[in-house]
């Protein structure tokens, strides 16, 4: 019942908000709702014993299509729930600095997204997962279509179609797998026991993987990402980059690894090299960006490449590192984007060339930016350091050159971040007007996020313990199948 509440709290709040007049009070209500969800997830976390798998809600929805309403979670799901629940109050909070039309509608759409994301991470049935996975696109579609920036009409549709291409391939793959079960079922527990022939797995891998490769996105399925991230309203980009792309990672763990292990082994090197190449390539492009928001988009692309490579290393270090980094990345993206928004609010631009020398005017914001950046370039004692170090280790066990490429992306990352900071904040002050330095709202937003990165960078055990059990279990079944 608790899990059902997790779905319903944001959903019902969103419905209520849609029915009300467009007022700013909507933000407060939405914030309360996300805090309530956070409370529920923290409660789940508190009572969770590492290594267990909990299935609580079970209902035969459409048994003859293999669709059952089964909700549950293991350590990995819980990590994803935690990530969603932690990040969403901040995403709603970011609305306080934005002057958007129809705040109640924006917040309703954001809460719908949160509800569907919880659904994705709670679903223990492939079909149910798919339904939530696709549904989460619908509110985001409207968020981008109504509150996006330039060229939003074209970019939104391209984003929608691109993502659905993957989604439909996943549906096909799912239908294929379901047809192999008797009696028909698409419960993860049943799908994981499928032993498909090797040559089937080799092509089925792409049917299942494509959706997630596009969602993340990894090279060469990324072309929708920079435009969409840049055009989307700030909160939309936070949702996309902070939480939605984690569905890709989670999907790979739930669908690809257990169902087509031989396919994973067959394509592993290809995927890792594609991801690493994409990570380097995006890093180099990020270096050349003039627009800070676009730079964040490319940097996210670069980080995600590394995430995927680490995951496909398919060993303890790689997978735990990837999952750990997923959490770090969510917090990083949200805080980076918040700074982009804060700078834009003050200077009226997000062009790096036009900024310059803001440190003198905005010392406190510059300091906060610096702390966020420290996490972005993965200095030791930050959360990203832990994740990237683990992934680096995982790749090293597999192949030295891969580890080398991974390190190269980290170096490139440091270069473009520092360069961006330099261009935005340092240099001669050329701003004649007065600007308000970081105020109460900015501190309320950024300080907790920075605190999380530092605390978990110093003491990563709570998160690593959470995922360790399921990762070991996954690896033992994987190695048994090779």
């Amino acid at each position, binding site marked *: 019942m608790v899990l059902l509440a997790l779905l319903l709290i944001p959903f019902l709040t969103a419905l209520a908000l849609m029915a009300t007049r467009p007022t700013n009070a909507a933000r407060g209500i939405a914030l309360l709702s996300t805090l309530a969800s956070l409370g529920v997830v923290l409660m789940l976390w508190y009572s969770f014993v590492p290594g267990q798998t909990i299935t609580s809600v079970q209902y035969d929805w459409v048994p003859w299509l293999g669709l059952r309403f089964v909700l549950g979670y293991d350590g990995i799901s819980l990590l994803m729930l935690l990530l969603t629940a932690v990040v969403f109050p901040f995403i709603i909070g970011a609305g306080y600095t934005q002057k958007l039309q129809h705040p109640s509608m924006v917040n309703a759409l954001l809460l719908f997204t949160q509800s569907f994301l919880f659904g994705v991470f709670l679903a223990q049935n492939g079909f149910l997962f798919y339904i939530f996975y696709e549904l989460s696109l*619908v509110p985001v*579609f409207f968020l981008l*279509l109504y509150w996006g920036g330039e060229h939003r*009409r074209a970019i939104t549709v391209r984003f929608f*179609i691109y993502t*659905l291409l993957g989604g*439909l*391939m996943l549906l096909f793959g799912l239908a294929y797998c379901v047809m192999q079960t008797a009696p028909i079922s698409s419960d993860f527990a049943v799908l994981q026991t499928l032993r498909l022939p090797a040559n089937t797995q080799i092509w089925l891998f792409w049917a299942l993987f494509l959706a997630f490769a596009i969602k993340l996105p990894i090279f060469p399925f990324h072309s929708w990402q920079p435009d969409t991230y840049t055009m989307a309203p700030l909160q939309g980009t936070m949702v996309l980059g902070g939480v939605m792309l984690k569905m890709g990672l989670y999907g790979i763990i739930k669908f690809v690894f257990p169902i087509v292990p031989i396919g994973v082994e067959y394509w592993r090197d290809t995927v890792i090299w594609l991801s690493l190449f994409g990570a380097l390539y995006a890093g180099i492009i990020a270096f050349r960006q003039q627009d800070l928001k676009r730079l964040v988009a490319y940097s996210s692309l670069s980080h995600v490449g590394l995430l995927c490579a680490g995951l496909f290393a398919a060993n303890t270090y790689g997978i735990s590192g990837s999952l750990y980094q997923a959490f770090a990345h969510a917090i990083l993206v949200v805080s980076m984007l918040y700074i982009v928004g804060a700078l834009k609010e003050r200077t009226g631009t997000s062009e790096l060339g036009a900024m310059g020398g803001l440190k003198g005017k905005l010392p406190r914001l510059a300091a906060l930016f610096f702390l966020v950046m420290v996490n972005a370039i993965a200095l030791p004692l930050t959360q990203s350091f832990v994740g990237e170090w683990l992934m680096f280790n995982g790749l090293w066990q597999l192949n030295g050159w891969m580890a080398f490429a991974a390190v190269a992306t980290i170096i490139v990352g440091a270069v473009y971040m520092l360069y961006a900071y330099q261009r935005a904040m340092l240099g001669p002050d050329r701003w004649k007007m007065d600007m308000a330095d970081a105020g109460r709202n900015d501190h309320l937003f950024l300080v907790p996020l920075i605190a999380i990165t530092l605390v978990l960078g110093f003491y990563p055990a709570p998160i690593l313990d959470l995922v360790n059990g399921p990762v070991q279990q996954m690896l033992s079944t994987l190695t048994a199948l090779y």
Partner: protein
Amino acid sequence: MSALILTSVLGVVLLYFGLFGNKKLLAPVGIVGLVAALVLSWTGWNPGIMEFPTMVEFDRMSVLFNCAMIVVTILIFLFGIDYYERMEENVAEHYALMIFSLTGAFLLTSYTNLLMLFLGIEILSIPLYILAGGKKRSYRSSEASFKYFLLGSFATAFFLMGIALIYGVTASFDLHVIQAKLATGASSNVLFLLGSFFVAIGLSFKVAAVPFHFWSPDVYEGAPTLVTAFMATVVKTAAFAGFYRFVQMTGLPPALANTLLVMTVLTLLVGNVVALRQSQFKRLMAYSSIAHSGFLLMAILANGVMTPNTLFYYTFTYALATVGLFVVLTLAKRAANGNEAITIFRGLFRANPWLAFVTMLLLLSLAGIPLTAGFIAKYQVFMLAIGAGFIKTAVFAVVMALVGIYYYVLVIREAFTPAEETPVLVVSPLNWLVITLCGISVVAFAVWPLNLVG
């Protein structure tokens, strides 16, 4: 059976009402009659009843299809009350012709004799030829009617030839006898193959499968919107039910299966790709209807245990979404002074949020996005196709479904884009009811997808 008789009488009664000028009573009487027919059909739910010794058989499949068609016709009649209010003459004939057409549709879902199939198709089609030309003073309407008639007769000729050839091989029109003959080896007979091939052509024409689809965009565009809605829904449902009965009885000889496979692929391709280029909403719906025929053909091709249920579910939910959209089109068209371009939907959300929301649901259902019935329908088709081993066709259909999503999303985008001048939509309570019913049922059937036929 009694429903069949009731509807034929109902049509005549409506004609009499027309004679005495009770225009206001037409639709209510029609609807009451249809509800009665619905009840009568439903009472025939249990085992298959043969009628006219062995000419028609009302089994579960036909009862379901009949009920679905009656429900859709009732919705269209509800829509008609407002639609025909501005029309002075011949309203009774329109209602009566639709009822007659529905009677033909009943035969198509329940025949066990090829003669009945032929009768069904003709009773279904002839009223449609007239209905398509319903706007007498419109050139486009007359053109549509004439085109439909000419091409329709052409298809009928093929169809009759096919029946004759099958008779030549098996010496019977009765599907049970034919089935028995086929079991003893007649199925490899070239004449039989040719015959079933011709029958398939005639049916493909009715469902607008490529390459027999050329009539549909022009006829859809030219015919009065209400008639277009009827053609896209009831007629398509009946034709697919008829098609399936034929395939179910004769089986699918490899040669015919291969032909169907090619037609399925072409239908999916042409329907979806050409729809991308349409700027007129009715033409878009015509190509979308062709595209959906492709998915339905795939279900027929798979010819599995679940095929009848899939066909029923798919056609019914498709019909609900389509009727709703045509009502919305009519409203938007009035606000835009008769313009039928997709751009007339712009500003719909500002004008009437609920209407825009339901329009979105209906379009998402046609596109096949989760938690709408269209999604479950497509999923069933994919499962059927994969189960029957058509893996590559299924992948192709998936890609085509994506193309489909694109043009539906374009319409949704229009509806949710603010217009420079927000259109003023006048929604009569009945139209609101029809649209809302369609919207709700499209979601309800996704949440409770019943498995009735199987």
